[in-house]
């Protein structure tokens, strides 16, 4: 697979008027709305490093490159791509950018849109387009890179990306703080951590179901990760130990947290004002329904709900989600509810389309006039 192969696949589909399912490693094909496709265009074999100059802290890779491969290549130079989307680290960078997927590290390193410097894609007419560039700062031309990020393959097939890297920190430590008091005690402790001057790499509050599944005990838990030079990590751990009881965890806990989604039929992200979530976090965490994992990133204001990951609650999933959202609606106000994964039959009722506005329709027509790229995945 190469850009030229993507071009000819798209041109063929365009001529035949058939839809194409765009895929990376095909590990997350059940996300998004059902796609009306006749064939699959997999980028899995189009992988590898195109250019990497460690001194520039930038990396250009083919879209099919797995996140684990990027980790391996950059680690050799004590660098990393601080992007940890939920799911397996065998997922591809192309799919990660296309779906704008991020994880706990986003609270300090940003979303894919913040780490992406440029990309190459093939639009729905089979034209090869580049946006951005390979340098860390660039305002030349209209921003096609941001436009493609999170477009779920519907505007073009991403074939290559250039990313900003960071140096691996000298020290990287993770702690678990059990949240096992009353709702009020939990609220007070969480607030003390969140509004402190600490600058953790990542901070997640997990409900008891999620904590249990990770072997972190029977209660809700706060997972916190510090990175940087030895002095800055030591001083923060020291400061935190005055307000909470800390239990050090292996950093692999984050990999396991990302994989909690495995097998879930439903994942929903609710993004709100950070403080709103902070105020209701203790109540949300108390929501201990078997088969439902909730994780809160109080710095970003993101609540992630995973339903049915362990086979429980397979049938009543949709109902349970409805309950969860209703339950919290009063407390989170003007939030964005982002559905990643739902049972296929539920989509049309819950979220038929996220691209029905005039501008989005215009963008789609401009970039994929024959509607052959992942048709239906964002709705019509």
């Amino acid at each position, binding site marked *: 697979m190469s850009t030229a192969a993507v071009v000819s696949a798209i041109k063929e589909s365009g001529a035949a008027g058939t839809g194409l399912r765009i895929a990376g490693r095909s590990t997350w094909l059940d996300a998004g709305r059902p796609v009306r496709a006749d064939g699959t265009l997999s980028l899995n074999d189009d992988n590898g490093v195109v250019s990497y100059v460690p001194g520039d802290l930038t990396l250009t890779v083919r879209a099919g490159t797995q996140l684990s491969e990027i980790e391996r290549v950059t680690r050799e130079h004590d660098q990393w791509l601080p992007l940890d989307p939920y799911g397996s680290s065998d997922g591809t960078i192309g799919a990660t950018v296309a779906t704008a997927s991020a994880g706990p590290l986003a609270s300090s390193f940003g979303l894919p849109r*913040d780490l992406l410097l440029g990309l190459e894609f093939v639009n729905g007419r089979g034209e090869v387009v580049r946006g951005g560039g390979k340098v860390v700062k660039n305002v030349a031309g209209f921003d096609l890179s941001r436009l493609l990020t999170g477009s779920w393959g519907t505007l073009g097939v991403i074939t290559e990306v250039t990313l900003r890297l960071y140096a691996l920190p000298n020290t990287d430590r993770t702690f678990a703080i059990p949240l096992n008091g009353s709702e009020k005690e939990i609220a007070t402790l969480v607030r003390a951590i969140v509004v402190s001057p600490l600058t953790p790499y990542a901070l997640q509050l997990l409900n008891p179901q999620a904590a249990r599944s990770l072997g972190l005990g029977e209660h809700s838990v706060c997972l916190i990760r510090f990175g940087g030079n030895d002095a800055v990590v030591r001083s923060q751990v020291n400061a935190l130990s005055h307000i909470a009881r800390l239990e050090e965890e292996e950093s692999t806990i984050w990999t396991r947290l990302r994989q909690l989604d495995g097998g879930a039929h439903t994942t929903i992200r609710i993004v709100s004002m950070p403080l709103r979530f902070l105020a209701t976090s203790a109540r949300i965490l108390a929501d201990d329904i078997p088969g439902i994992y909730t994780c809160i990133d109080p710095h970003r204001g993101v609540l992630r709900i995973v339903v049915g990951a362990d086979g429980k609650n397979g049938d009543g999933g949709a109902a349970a989600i409805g309950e969860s959202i209703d339950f919290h609606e009063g407390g989170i106000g003007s939030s964005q509810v982002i559905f990643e994964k739902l049972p296929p039959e539920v989509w049309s009722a819950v979220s038929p389309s996220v691209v029905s506005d005039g*501008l989005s329709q215009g963008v789609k027509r401009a970039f994929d006039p024959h509607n052959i790229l992942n048709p239906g995945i964002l709705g019509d």
Partner: protein
Amino acid sequence: MTQPIAAQSPAHSQSTQSAVAERLAEIVGERHVLSRPSELLVYNSDGLPGYRRQPSLAVFPGTREETVAVVRLLANEGLPFVPRGAGTGLSGGALADDIVVIGLHRLKKIISLDVENRRATVEPGVVNLRLNKHVAPHGLLYAPDPSSEAACTIGGNVAENAGGPHCLKYGVTLNHVLALTVVLPNGEVVELGSKVGERNGYDLRGAFIGSEGCFGLALDITVKLTPKPQTVRTLLADFMSVDAAAHVTSAIIASGIVPAALEFMDGPTIRVVEDSIYAAGYPRDAEAILLIELDGLEAGVSADLEAVRRICINGGARNVKVARDDAERTKLWQGRKKAFGAMGRLAPHLIVQDAVIPRTRLPEILATIRNISEKYRVVVCNVFHAGDGNLHPNIAYSADDPDESERVHKAMTEIMQACIDAGGSITGEHGVGLDKMGYMEAIFSESSLNAMCELRGVFDPERRSNPGKVVPVHACKEWHAVSGGRLRMGTVSSTAPEPRPVEAEPSHPSAR
């Protein structure tokens, strides 16, 4: 430069223009519409003095409703327009060539401030510095800090995707704008992005930021605010060679430390600044200085400070001085931020470039710039965001001297080419505007430029908002196909002349 039909169409008569002026005055009040050539002179350039274009009218709405009404009136008339903030841009992007300029500086309300969630919603005419003064008492700041922060507006920042020294650590405008209310060129009002930071669907906010006024006007902008760092330390390292300072820059970046800012000034710049009222106490005999700022938690900053100092000394720094207090720190920054202004001392005109190169190529490119400046007998002042690889080679000259202008122009073209050849970009934060349009084809393929045209066509199908900027018209396939039949007064024509390549443009006496 795309010409409005003004010059070609007999329909564009003086009386029609005054009729439009009258109707605009009904919306915004008579004193907020300018139509006399003498009054419009002020709006015939931006911060880059090499370009002059005279608008036909200038209108200054005072409220969001007035702004929408103005845009709708122009839409109904099919008239092109150029949105303008403070006019501090450095790409010729806010120039209106015999068309209407919509000045947004009167829209300067800070609409809301949410301290706990660290967000502010502002009108487009709010000046960066004013927003920062407004949020500072709450321990917050708005991170993007263009050198013109005392005058430039958030709306202008959005249009250009503005940067600044501290973007090295904190990111550019695009990383700090969460949501926008936009009036599209057809008068429709839309919400882009979301105040909570993420939303479903296409990232139209991302597409709008940096669209240089070609996609419409922002009516309000919700930005993310950043907590003021606990500790800030500013170092000044001076060097007896440009090369040593360039290598130290690369070494700091490669070390993995992310300074809040890492700025470079060469000998000619140092001496210009020290001769000016902005004298910052830089060592006059140095061939280069690095201004390095580290911020964050005290413990971490101290450790990084020692590491950076070591890198500087090992790399040949003569002295490394750490600012003792805020006053000293402010003074060190003042010299850097006012360096462009200080260059006014050298000669009446100044060309400012904005190329970006991969950071490991810095020593080599600076040597190339030196060779080019010697070849053309021009003095290049380098003052730039070294940590990002964002160069600003500037040449002060007299545009009234044709021979000098010619040499300056050739030198700049060669410098730009060297940056492109190194795998860089033609602009890091100033935008393409008019100034760099001629280089777009050097870094983007035909199909990439066409995709940009198509994206623009979604926001502004009639191409009336800031016509003739950013992407050369001849690069837009579809635009050729558009029939030239439906022409009304001032409507942008698909048969308009193609933009002249930059080689024949600005910074050139003939263009003035």
